[in-house]
């Protein structure tokens, strides 16, 4: 048992415990903070797997972007100090049962299956390799998905502004 193993188990338990707290706590702001911890734990797992670039992207986009967006939307839509309404016991019970059964089924399948990989001549996930692949136009390049995703991001940006824009008051009167 070496340091790497200990760090892995610490990260895994940190991630899972904060994920459970994020879906069970009744204070919505605390749920957002526990979600933040979960995302940091996942970024730690990427660091542990030595995928540094993905870990950095995870921290920048999820921890720095999406969580802040969620916290702002909580500020805009919730009254301070409100608890989330208590859910019916039966619904919680059946949700837990369904989740646990699904989890057991998946893990049973995973442990019965032997994964056969191809471990010849590893390609290290350095930023230079990622960049060459990302904008490569040959057979295994990702230039086309990259452009499609950039169009999608632009469309999402415009869509957000259109959806969240307050319509003009006189238009409302005409509609009513």
């Amino acid at each position, binding site marked *: 048992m070496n340091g790497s*193993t200990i760090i*892995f188990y610490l990260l*895994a338990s940190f*991630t*899972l415990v904060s994920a459970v707290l*994020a*879906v*069970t706590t009744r204070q919505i702001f605390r*749920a957002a903070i526990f979600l933040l911890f*979960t*995302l940091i734990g*996942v970024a730690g*797992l*990427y660091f542990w*797997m*030595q*995928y540094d*670039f*993905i870990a950095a*992207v995870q921290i920048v*986009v*999820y921890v720095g972007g*999406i969580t802040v*967006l*969620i916290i*702002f939307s*909580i500020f*805009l839509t*919730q009254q301070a100090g409100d608890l*989330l*309404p208590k*859910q019916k016991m039966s619904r*919680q019970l059946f*949700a837990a049962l*369904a*989740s646990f059964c699904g*989890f057991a089924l998946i*893990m049973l399948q*995973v442990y019965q299956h032997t*994964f*056969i*990989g*191809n*471990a010849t*001549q*590893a*390609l290290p996930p350095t930023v230079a*390799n*990622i960049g060459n692949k*990302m904008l490569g136009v040959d057979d*295994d390049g990702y230039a086309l*998905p990259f452009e499609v995703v950039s169009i*999608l*991001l632009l469309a*999402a940006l415009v*869509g*957000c502004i259109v*959806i*969240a824009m*307050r319509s003009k008051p006189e238009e409302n009167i005409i509609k009513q």
Partner: protein
Amino acid sequence: MPEPGLYHLLFISAALFFIGMFGFFTRRNLVTMLMSIELILNSVNINFIAFNKYLWPNKMDGLFFVIFVIAIAAAEAAVAIAIIINLYRSHGSIDVEKAEELKY
């Protein structure tokens, strides 16, 4: 404790997925449901990276899938929050039980 490997990461990812699913089933507030979706997307990303690292280290397909999933998740979260804020403006609440005009 055994040396961590592919199966440990698959365990974490499956657990995170079903925690997110549990949250999606029990929560009735749109923002918390969105948080559960983020958990589910993160579990998928862990899966991709684990398979890329342990099974196909000579390729980078899993890594690129993760990058695109993260980009699409960011777009999805932004659009979802715009819709949530619009719903709050028209209904005064973001509880899914209160937004049921399309149900009948």
